[in-house]
């Protein structure tokens, strides 16, 4: 359930579920994979906090946690900054040393 294809599927599920109109069975109809496979993707997204299952009348629909998704993007932006800082410091360490060797 990992890798680029799984990520692409989950991204698509998250987008389709923004309006919260479809249940797992309807969502599964959009993909060339088994109901069980789609159900598994939805379960992973639900565990991650990115979608919820909601009861509307007699149906259960999958709805994207839009606020959570936006928060995730902001957190990843911040995380990127953290790692860019680390890479800069790594580069400085590696470069300082090669200068010392050259001297």
């Amino acid at each position, binding site marked *: 359930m990992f890798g680029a294809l799984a990520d692409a599927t*989950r*991204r698509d599920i998250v987008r389709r579920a923004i309006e919260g109109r479809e249940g797992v069975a309807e969502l599964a109809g959009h993909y060339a994979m088994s109901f069980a496979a789609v159900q598994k993707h939805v379960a992973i997204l639900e565990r991650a*906090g990115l979608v919820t299952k909601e009861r509307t009348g007699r149906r259960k629909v999958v709805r994207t946690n839009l606020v959570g998704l936006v928060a995730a993007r*902001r957190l990843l932006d*911040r*995380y990127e900054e953290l*790692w860019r800082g*680390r*890479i800069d410091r790594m580069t400085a360490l*590696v470069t300082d040393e090669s200068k010392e060797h050259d001297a």
Partner: protein
Amino acid sequence: MTVTAVRKDPEALTMTLDAEFDAAPDRVWQLWADPRQLERWWGPPSYPATVTAHDLRPGGRVEYHMTGPEGDQPRGYWELVEVDPPRRIVFRDGFAKEDGTPNDDLPRNDVNVTINPLGGGRTRMSIESVFPDLAAMEQLIGFGMEEGITQAVGQIDAILAEDGIATTAAS
């Protein structure tokens, strides 16, 4: 610019970052394998890291603390899953208790580091970082994030437009 690519995937709670160095893989590996070098890059200048244990083997642990401007000392640890010098290191990074042991009440995230020679004495390093869930991500990265979720709500429209998510949803 040594960072050559960044891929952020909020739906998978994952970030992948590629960087290139003007140095051989063995040299880049030392940034991880030598605790004195590790502490020179892990923490930002305002929170320098001190590595107090460094057992870089599968099942081994790295223990560290950072020292903040107010003298605060948040503690963390890595639990090593895979160590294959000078090519690969996989670990879980989490919060530690005062005595350096893992604090299991707090979340951790998985980090996969891959180091590959590019030829000409250059090296590419890829960092893939995966978070278990949104709440964990907030605890691990969101620390000190004043604006928090309120401002995120205000940004939803802009991000949807930029992403074409709104278009997809309307189709």
